[in-house]
């Protein structure tokens, strides 16, 4: 056994990856290392002078094939606070033949010698394809229903700051697990750090084989919330509400929407999270979303910090650093 000191920190633990394509494949100490870096970034972001220079002279391109105000601005701010030149490229899906622009755009961008490419795409695995074709570091900002690693990291940071730990907490993830990249990344990360993970949803919104994904499965919200320390709500896409996966909004809200009555089943000090954007009155009641137990706004703040940490960690491995 090595001895733990009070100052034990993973701040300087190496991050030997060229890309961040997912939480899968990260070691727990690497995850903790990123969280520790992010704590520093929180401090910087709260100062009047919010600037570090680790990415000075570096070019970061945010390539978004899917609209996302919050993730894109979060990455933009993170890059700028680290001194990078940040360029945003929104590629609208309607204007291009499907898929074609992904590789073509990548080749074009690659020729401009970016150092960091932040990519969101509607197809699972799109970032893996890109990462094979470009010479820079790629950060997955969400690829279809596959992974959204920085969301899981910011969720973990938010939880840790409030509960002081992740291990042995009971985290209930509720809603459209089947189509959620946030759920996948969180399941992997929370398991890696020793949390107990539950998922709560009607079976039509659960991926097949869910019971083997390292979670306890509940179809009943009351059962699933019993004793939970953290309640993570997921957004339900509008096109899935009208009979395809669940019969109607009101039925979904009745059985799976988080309201005060259901939240009562969780621990008294349970905290509520949501990756946004929220549908108040669909998956979450307005009074809960904006209530005392909600961490939803803080998640946004932690988002910038975590993205700074990720960009910084990847920058350590960039050539000529």
């Amino acid at each position, binding site marked *: 056994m090595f001895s733990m000191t009070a100052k034990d920190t993973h701040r300087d633990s190496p991050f030997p990856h060229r890309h961040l394509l997912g939480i*899968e494949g990260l070691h727990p100490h690497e995850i903790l290392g990123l969280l520790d870096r992010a704590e520093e970034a929180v401090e910087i972001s709260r100062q009047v002078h919010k600037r570090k220079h680790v990415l000075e002279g570096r070019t970061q391109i945010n390539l978004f094939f899917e609209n996302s105000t919050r993730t894109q601005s979060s990455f933009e701010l993170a890059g700028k606070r680290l001194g990078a030149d940040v360029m945003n490229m929104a590629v609208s899906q309607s204007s291009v033949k*499907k*898929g*074609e622009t*992904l*590789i073509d755009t990548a080749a074009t961008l690659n020729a401009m010698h970016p150092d960091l490419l932040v990519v969101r*795409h509607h*197809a*699972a*695995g*799109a970032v*893996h*394809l890109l990462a094979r074709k470009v010479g820079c570091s790629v950060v997955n900002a969400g*690829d*279809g*229903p*596959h*992974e959204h690693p920085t969301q899981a990291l910011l969720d973990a940071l938010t939880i840790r700051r409030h509960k002081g730990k992740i291990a042995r907490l009971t985290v209930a993830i509720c809603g459209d697990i*089947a189509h959620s*990249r946030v759920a*996948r990344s969180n399941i992997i990360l929370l398991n890696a750090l020793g949390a107990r993970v539950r998922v709560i949803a009607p079976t039509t919104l659960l*991926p*097949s*084989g*869910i019971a*083997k*994904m390292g979670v306890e499965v509940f179809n009943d919200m009351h059962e699933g919330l019993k004793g939970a320390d953290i309640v993570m709500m997921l957004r339900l896409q509008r096109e899935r509400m009208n009979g395809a996966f669940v019969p109607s909004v009101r039925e979904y809200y009745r059985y799976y929407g988080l309201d005060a009555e259901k939240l009562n089943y969780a621990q008294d000090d349970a905290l509520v999270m949501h990756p946004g954007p929220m549908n108040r009155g669909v998956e979450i009641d307005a009074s809960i979303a904006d209530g005392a137990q909600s961490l939803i706004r803080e998640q946004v703040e932690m988002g910038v910090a975590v993205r700074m940490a990720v960009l910084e960690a990847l920058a350590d491995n960039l050539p000529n650093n």
Partner: protein
Amino acid sequence: MAIDTPKPLVLSNARVIDPARDMDAPGSVIIADGTILAAGPEAANQGTPYGAEIFDCKGAIACPGLIDMCVSVGEPGAEHRETLASASQAAAAGGITTICTMPDTDPVIDDPALVDFIHRRARDTASVNVLPLAALTKGLEGNEMTEIGLLKEAGAVAFTSGHKSVKNAQVMRRMMTYARDFDALVIHHVEDPDLAGGVMNAGLNASWKGLSGVPREAEIIMLERDLRLVGMSKGKYHANLISTSDSADVIRVGKARGLDITAGVSINHLTHNENDIGAYRTFFKMSPPLRDEDDRQAMIAAVADGTIDIICSNHDPQDVETKRHPWAEAEDGAIGLETLLAAALRLYHSDQVDLKTLLAAVTSGPADRLGLETGRLSKGAPADVTVFDPERPWVLEKSSIRSRSKNSPFEDARFTGRVLRTVVAGRPVYDYS
């Protein structure tokens, strides 16, 4: 085109395997006028025809040329992916002497004139036999039946829905019934399109990848439906590509009930499973999707016990324009002509299927089902012969692939077993050097 008779050929010092005659014995193969004069031990002490070329097999195996019952070619319509000429070169290098071409081209092969087009293009450009399969429904749209009689007369060897299923059971029933009157074989892709609705095998693997799944039941349900329709129509039916253990069970039951059915499997489902997909490698995207290891083992067992009659390459050339996309947006399909035999030999080297059974599934199996004279080395049969050394190692390098498209799931794969010579109608069309 000059019509010349190939000079006689003796493949001497061979191990002759002829599954149709249950033969596996040292001997030679004597060929003259494009037909087999003798093959096996009895040929060893016969004289050599005058002027014959003697090819010393040095103990390598001589077997009937392979027949690949499911080959997509880009001609007509997508010649940049594959032509009959390039496909036949790839086939010859893989020991395949006959390819059955799928009708899902552009235009769809649903008219006798188009069958004739394939025949003429093949005669002028292809070095192996090309047998067109015709569409079962007009435009492969699954609604109206094609002119089965006229198409058959024009030279279509069987009728297929291509790489999709006929969803409407009533349409399928009528076509099977009508086809029976013409003794026509119906080849069906068994996958319920509504239930399939995904891009890889359903299950844990797809769930982690965030990909929508194709449940095994999409295949099983369609196959079960089909066999009921075969029972009603009393037709000849071939399930083109099965991929699950339950499908093999359904076939077993159907055969036991005396239905005139056969089943095929692609070489990919015998040698790969869903784990090979790795980080979304689209060369492993195909229909039916690669299943799990249990299903792969069940497919091998079904070949070994004869439930599966036919192994095909399901050769489907796709280029970067159709493959270099995120997984869900990439096309299905993998090339496989050059690697069919070598990949199949993996089952022999792993002691799971004996050589004679394995070779039957690529020679006499398809020949019997299609009613061909080839696929055997009997006296008087067309002299389509493949000579291969089952022990010779080689590596498939992308740069050496003969197909116009390079979407091989076997890129950089190591094989044990190499084709040395391929003979079509008495004429060598491929020599390994």
